[in-house]
């Protein structure tokens, strides 16, 4: 006998189950049928033909669109694209009671194409599996009398609320702990008797206080005990274990003193209820402060999340309506007015405007956009009105991808954190062993009251040890550092790149598009006697008017900038590797290189050396008889390249320019940019080899290039920087992506990396020192000098402060300014 599991859909009540049951039991070979409404599936035992079963199900009207023995939910979630099944999460409004849940679930399950629908009343969301579109699902919920919208993962407000609620709860727990602990401690400090005297009324009072302390442990300290117990069962030990053991030991000992004081020596009849309550209060306070400080460390991601527009103005059937951005589909036509945010990624269909993309790329200047240009979600439309077609929505927008990338990198760890990781993994059990050893040492070697000393030393060791500080040291700094970089348009992919960037000694810069603008322009005009600059340019531009060559474009752009009109050309001919010729106003003109014109018998009467010395390519213009002038065309360096290169050199780096250009032009650009070395005439495919050769010399090399042509070299380098990618963040060859085009981004990235690594070192140093000094002191190594043991209450305060200090130090990085003191 075999069991077949068939998915069903639309079965919501026992009546449906009966129908399915009847339909299937009629099929030959079926022995037993069990309908599972919760999971929308039916199990059939027997030897029935699967096709017959499916047919019976279809006739009953409850067949799911897919068949198979695989659990439907699993199949859809694992391979959503291959089966066109998808899981949609809806945010539900108007659901006030548990019975609403059933109504909403029924409404969703009754929608064609839905295979499974479950509502989570706690967070007011419904998860729906199937092929139904989001709009259909929303309509179904709305028809049932409730509101629905697509739930987003970037629901920052809700997250903030949860964080606030957690913060308030921690504060309540703190007051509970301190409310009992502070008066008790004050009583002890003011000379009150903290010992139990058998048979005296004070014994009953202490018993009452013991019960109150148990109440504090069971409420304000409950999460420590539950966490410790669950971890223990899993053979794990964590911070909760230490706190639960420390406070639990103090309470148990004190209760033993209260209940059976006679069993203990008189000097050991001291109670420590105040320590248990105070520690619980202080640690809750520490956690509350940590929640606050942590909020600041993720400010960068919150800022990115806030960039997203909430609504979009969609143009459908000629009408414009504002709809929630979650309801925009790819292909929708959207309008954005001046001062509004771009809602989703798209292509401009109509209009012209300037868009502020600084929030994504770090580039301060707005970018002109016209028909055919790409616009990105989250950027700000400054000037005109644009009509654009959505090309990416939701998680596919550049903004969402940037957020995802930043979050992923924030969780990665540079190698510097590995030691702390290794220590963290064995930390808590080691501290527990140290606590036992300390207690035994006091029992065997210490003075009386030995039992009291045992308890205090062991409890204090458990409480003072802080795995949090150690565990948080690296990730907190990485989180802030990576976020800080993102604010400057720098996307760091791995934590490792942070560390490597901080110890680079050589940086190789690709010339075209990295140091230079990557677009040639007219840089000089030399006129023969009797010739005018504008006339010369007009002739040259007219000759080149039909050409797509970059040099021709440079001349045409310059002519356009000067407002020159073009002459009509006839008999145009382009001679490969030589130049162009055409007739203008009845006369033949030629524009090309020196060798060609010389071979045509034109005397070169002007000196072109000043042009070539500056890295320009000279183009010679001649009529039928003589040379009229020379036009210098060069790829100019970006305005801020030399300043950025100076910053890199000041940081102690050797700056090398790499290019396919001939040595003379390369040298000219190198002089202007101020680089240390030049690698000229390097074929694109050889760039990676050159980087490798530098690495073989023992150098730590960064490569900066465009991310596509330079991909092998970027991958070969210790750190690859892809520059000027705009909002195209899918450059995987580079460890660091600079969305802006300025080389200052490289200097900024390195400054941020250095600051982050410095911050990690401070945190790690602090955490290691704290633990390696705190634990021995708690164990009592200073007793021979001070004559007293560290109080567990002070240990609790120190422990709370240590993790807050780490988080606060990391959030200090937010104030770091990478360009500080530099001319920008």
């Amino acid at each position, binding site marked *: 006998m075999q069991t077949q599991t068939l998915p069903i859909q639309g079965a919501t009540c026992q009546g449906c189950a009966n129908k399915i049951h009847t339909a299937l039991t009629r099929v030959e070979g079926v022995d037993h049928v069990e309908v599972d409404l919760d999971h929308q599936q039916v199990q059939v035992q027997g030897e029935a033909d699967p096709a017959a079963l499916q047919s019976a199900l279809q006739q009953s009207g409850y067949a799911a669109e897919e068949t198979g023995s695989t659990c439907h939910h*699993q199949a859809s*979630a*694992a*391979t959503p694209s291959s089966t066109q099944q998808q899981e949609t999460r809806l945010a539900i409004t108007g659901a006030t009671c548990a019975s609403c849940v059933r109504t909403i679930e029924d409404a969703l399950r009754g929608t064609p194409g839905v295979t499974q629908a479950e509502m989570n009343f*706690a*967070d007011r*969301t419904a*998860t729906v599996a199937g092929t139904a579109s989001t709009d259909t699902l929303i309509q179904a919920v709305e028809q049932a009398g409730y509101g629905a919208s697509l739930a987003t*993962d970037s*629901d920052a407000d809700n*997250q903030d609320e*949860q*964080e606030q*609620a*957690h913060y308030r*709860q921690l504060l309540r727990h703190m007051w509970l702990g301190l409310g009992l602990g502070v008066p008790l401690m004050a009583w002890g400090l003011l000379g009150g008797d903290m010992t139990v005297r058998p048979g005296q009324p004070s014994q009953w009072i202490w018993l009452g206080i013991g019960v109150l302390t148990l109440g504090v442990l069971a409420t304000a300290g409950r*999460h420590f005990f*539950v966490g*410790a117990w*669950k*971890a*223990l*069962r*899993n*053979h*794990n*030990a*964590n*911070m*909760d274990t230490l706190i639960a053991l420390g406070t639990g030991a103090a309470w148990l000992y004190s209760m033993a003193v209260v209940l059976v004081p006679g069993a203990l020596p008189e000097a050991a009849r001291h109670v420590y209820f105040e320590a248990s309550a105070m520690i619980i209060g202080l640690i809750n306070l520490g*956690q509350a402060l*940590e*929640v606050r400080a*942590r909020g600041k460390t993720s400010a960068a991601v919150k800022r990115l999340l806030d960039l997203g527009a909430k609504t979009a103005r969609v143009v459908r059937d000629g009408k414009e309506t504002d709809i929630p951005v979650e309801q925009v589909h790819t292909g929708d036509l959207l309008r954005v007015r001046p001062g509004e945010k771009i809602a989703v990624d798209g292509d401009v269909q109509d209009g012209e405007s300037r868009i502020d993309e600084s929030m994504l790329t770090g580039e301060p200047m707005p970018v002109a956009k016209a028909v055919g240009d790409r616009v990105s979600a989250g950027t700000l439309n400054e000037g005109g009105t644009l009509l654009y077609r959505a090309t990416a929505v939701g998680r596919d927008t550049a903004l969402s991808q940037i957020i995802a990338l930043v*979050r*992923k990198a*924030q*969780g*990665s*760890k540079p190698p510097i954190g590995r030691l702390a*990781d290794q220590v*963290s*993994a*064995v930390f*808590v*059990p080691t501290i*527990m*062993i140290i606590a*036992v*050893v300390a*207690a*035994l040492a006091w*029992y*065997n070697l210490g003075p009386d009251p030995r039992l009291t000393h045992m308890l205090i030393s062991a409890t204090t060791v458990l409480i003072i040890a802080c*795995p*949090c500080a150690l*565990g*948080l040291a690296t*990730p907190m700094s990485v989180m802030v550092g990576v976020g800080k970089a993102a604010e400057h348009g720098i996307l760091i992919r*791995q934590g490792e790149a942070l560390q490597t960037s901080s110890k680079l000694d050589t940086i190789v810069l690709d010339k075209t598009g990295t140091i230079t603008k990557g677009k040639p322009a007219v840089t000089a005009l030399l006129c023969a006697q009797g010739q005018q600059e504008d006339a010369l340019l007009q002739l040259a531009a007219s000759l080149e008017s039909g050409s797509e060559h970059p040099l021709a474009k440079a001349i045409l752009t310059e002519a356009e900038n000067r407002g020159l009109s073009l002459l009509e050309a006839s008999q145009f001919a382009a001679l490969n590797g030589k130049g162009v010729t055409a007739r203008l106003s009845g006369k033949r003109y030629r524009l090309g290189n020196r060798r060609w014109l010389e071979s045509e018998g034109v005397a070169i009467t002007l000196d072109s050396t000043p042009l070539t010395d500056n890295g320009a390519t000279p183009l010679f213009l001649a009529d039928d008889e003589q040379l009229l002038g020379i036009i210098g065309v060069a790829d100019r360096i970006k305005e801020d390249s030399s300043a950025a290169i100076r910053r890199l050199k000041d940081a102690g780096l050797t700056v090398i320019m790499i290019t396919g250009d001939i040595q003379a032009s390369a040298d000219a650009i190198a002089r202007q940019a101020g680089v240390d070395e030049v690698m000229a005439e390097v074929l694109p495919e050889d760039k990676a080899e050159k980087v490798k050769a530098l690495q073989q010399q023992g150098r730590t090399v960064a490569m900066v290039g465009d991310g596509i042509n330079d991909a092998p070299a970027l991958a070969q380098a210790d750190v690859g920087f892809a520059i000027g990618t705009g909002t195209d963040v899918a450059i995987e060859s580079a460890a660091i992506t600079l969305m802006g085009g300025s080389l200052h981004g490289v200097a900024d990235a390195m400054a941020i990396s250095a600051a982050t690594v410095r911050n990690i070192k401070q945190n790690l140093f602090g955490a290691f020192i704290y633990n390696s000094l705190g634990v021995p002191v708690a164990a009592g190594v200073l007793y021979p000098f001070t004559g007293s043991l560290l109080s567990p209450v002070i240990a609790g305060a120190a422990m709370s402060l240590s993790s807050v200090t780490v988080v606060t130090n990391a959030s200090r990085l937010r104030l770091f300014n990478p360009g500080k003191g530099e001319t920008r």
Partner: protein
Amino acid sequence: MTLAINLAGVLLIGLIIWWFWLSRPGAKVQAASNETTVIVEDGVYTPSVLHAKAGTPLTLHFQRKDPSPCAEQVIFHGLDSSTFLETGKTTTVTLDNPPAGEYRFTCQMQMYQGRLIVD
């Protein structure tokens, strides 16, 4: 008395070493499945040991119920995967064809600990 206390101490140390380092949790082992829900609550992942088949994508739905910041990230060591988990929500982590081996997954501070066994 002295002997008994010292013996108890030594036994306790032995117990700590054995329980936390030498023995491995046998219970709560998730059956081999390439789609599993993991609950993040009270300092532990449930289940804390995951088995998966090599060569197929692994989909894990993390339900974070613990609002404390400790639980906010899950990091798969050696698989270059780190994900932020939102409180009260299910976050899906997909691992593309993880190679066979044993990987640790933890929170940032390694207080939450789990093992992923791919075979």
